[in-house]
């Protein structure tokens, strides 16, 4: 990638002037951003729309139904030592995802410091936390399916509850699973030193760089971000 500031003599303006300057220049609009990261952001923007549409369809179903919506506090409660704790599993899943977001942020940071082993270990921890999240979600799905929740009916209330639950959490869980897969792949690559030597990837054939860890980090934080909205609107509301 070429140096962007070499063509202009003056330093780049900031704020509104920076906005018009960057978009008006006949080069690339997103200055100081590796292309892979810019593309990841564009992808995440499109993904935002997908999850927005899911949550909006959930809102429409819930606001238009005349049958009472199931009480998620009770549906997702777990009985621990004879005491029913509301949303226990969901709370644990939330904390696991936030923890994994923290380790991911630190992996990005150590990646830019070229700390090979530290980055690989942090990526591995993130991947393991993500795996446990998916495992808990599988447990939750199993529990609800055993209790008779289906996409078309459920014993707790409005039938749309099942379809919304499986669609929204399923799509989110799929994102987590793909993220876990790429976390393991990247942890291996970092450990092997691909991003120090610039070894080309097996699929894209692009040179390995530590910027890739940041793009992966953006994806992982986005998965956490989506969970924040699902947790608020689907589980707590």
């Amino acid at each position: 990638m070429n140096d962007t500031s070499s063509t202009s003599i003056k330093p780049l303006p900031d704020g509104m002037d920076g906005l018009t300057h960057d978009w008006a220049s006949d080069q690339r609009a997103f200055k100081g951003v590796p292309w892979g990261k810019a593309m990841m952001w564009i992808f995440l923007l499109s993904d935002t729309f997908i999850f927005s549409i899911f949550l909006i369809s959930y809102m429409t179903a819930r606001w238009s139904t005349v049958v009472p919506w199931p009480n998620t506090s009770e549906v997702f409660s777990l009985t621990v030592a004879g005491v029913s704790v509301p949303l226990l599993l969901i709370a644990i899943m939330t904390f696991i995802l936030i923890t994994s977001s923290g380790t991911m942020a630190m992996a990005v940071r150590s990646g830019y410091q070229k700390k090979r082993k530290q980055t690989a270990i942090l990526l591995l921890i993130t991947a393991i936390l993500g795996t446990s999240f998916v495992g808990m979600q599988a447990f939750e799905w199993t529990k609800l399916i055993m209790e008779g929740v289906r996409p078309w009916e459920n014993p707790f209330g409005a039938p749309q509850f099942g379809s919304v639950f499986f669609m929204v959490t399923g799509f989110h869980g799929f994102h987590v699973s793909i993220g876990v897969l790429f976390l393991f792949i990247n942890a291996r690559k970092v450990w092997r030193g691909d991003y120090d030597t610039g070894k080309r990837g097996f699929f894209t054939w692009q040179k390995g760089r530590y910027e890739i860890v940041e793009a992966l980090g953006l994806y992982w934080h986005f998965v956490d971000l989506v969970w924040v909205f699902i947790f608020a609107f689907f589980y707590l509301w």
Partner: protein
Amino acid sequence: MATEGQAHPISVYLKIWILLFVLSVFSYMVDFYQLQGWLRWSLILIFMFLKAGFIMAIFMHMVWERMALVVALLSPMVAVLVFIAIMGYESEYTQNSRDLFFDDGKPDKVWAVPHGAHKSDHNDGSHSTGEAH
């Protein structure tokens, strides 16, 4: 290339991490203590937007990005908000229609339309009960 990285002190990440934990505990407490009504909804939204904001701003480095990228990513959210407003209005209408016509077979409620113009035409027959379904 070396200047393009995002390098920030680790204390920033740790502080945000702890903050996200605390905010998650708060939002869980909303359910645990079964707060209801406007208090519940506003607290859920406040904690949600705070968490989302911190994740985007710090973990995803948005506060350190140039405005061209930030605007490109955040301005399309207006379309989402418009869609929420449209579908909110639509679902309100759908529910009102269902309340009116998907009744459990009480004719007086089925025909309690504001106009009342066709009331005398249909309300005498017993089939109006069945028609509701």
